[in-house]
């Protein structure tokens, strides 16, 4: 099997991040992996976090709720509302973390394109402000609570930037 292409991340405009990733599967399958709770719990979540609750009503006007737990016992929750759900090629939702470490709601547009049986996923995250976009990945949440795990080097590097 061909090795999947690496993840691409780009900043767009003042408030957007665009993430592109190829998957060795038809887009129906990728779409279902994003919208079926039994499947979502098997892969979704930042490093060292596990999805323990996943509720999903995948249609326009519907919503979702994830709760994730870290080995340390820390929890975080995400609540989202779907604006558009077009199987198998497009999902648009607004979402917010319980702890709101993204500086307000984010608008997430997830588009799936299929080429020769492979899927190209393009996920665009629109933040509420430039500061939110630029600072979100330095939060302890995004770094998988590294603060609590002695990975001080990364934290120091972040602070020194």
């Amino acid at each position, binding site marked *: 099997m061909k090795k999947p292409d690496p993840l691409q*991340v780009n900043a767009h405009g003042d408030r957007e991040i665009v993430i592109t990733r190829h998957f060795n599967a038809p887009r129906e399958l990728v779409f279902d992996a994003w919208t079926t709770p039994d499947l979502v719990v098997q*892969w979704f979540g930042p490093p060292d976090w596990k999805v323990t609750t996943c509720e999903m009503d995948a249609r326009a006007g519907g919503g979702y709720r994830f709760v994730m737990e870290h080995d340390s016992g820390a929890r975080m929750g995400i609540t989202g509302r779907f604006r558009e759900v077009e199987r198998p090629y497009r999902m648009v939702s607004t979402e917010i973390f319980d702890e709101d470490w993204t500086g307000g709601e984010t608008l997430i547009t997830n588009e799936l394109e299929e080429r020769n049986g492979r899927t190209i996923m393009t996920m665009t995250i629109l933040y509420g402000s430039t500061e939110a976009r630029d600072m979100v990945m330095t939060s302890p949440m995004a770094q998988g609570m590294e603060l609590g795990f002695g990975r001080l080097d990364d934290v120091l590097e972040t602070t020194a*930037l």
Partner: protein
Amino acid sequence: MNISERLDATFAALADPTRRAILARLASGDLSVNELAEPFDMSQPAISKHLKVLERAGLVSRTVDGQRRPCHMEPKPLEEANRWLEKYRHYWEPSFQRLDSLLEGLQSKAVHANVQAKGKKR
């Protein structure tokens, strides 16, 4: 400038294809504005305008070397922008690798079910 403003200046400067091309050329050595303008179908003032944006973002510096004032690429803002993007990769890539395995499993299951269904028909 704080980190957010610096990143903003870097990404804004990199958003233009001519400016990316200028940086790509400077990556292999310092060049004067004239030398830079040569391969582009652009006037020297137009190139100078792009250079100003790159200078403001700290991506290019101009040293005083008599009349020449060569342009020099500064790698630090690019490194900073890359480190920042790296955090996003670090956040998402492990999830997507799990998704890769899940998709592979689902597909082999589907193939298996298909073979079984065909077998029953016979």
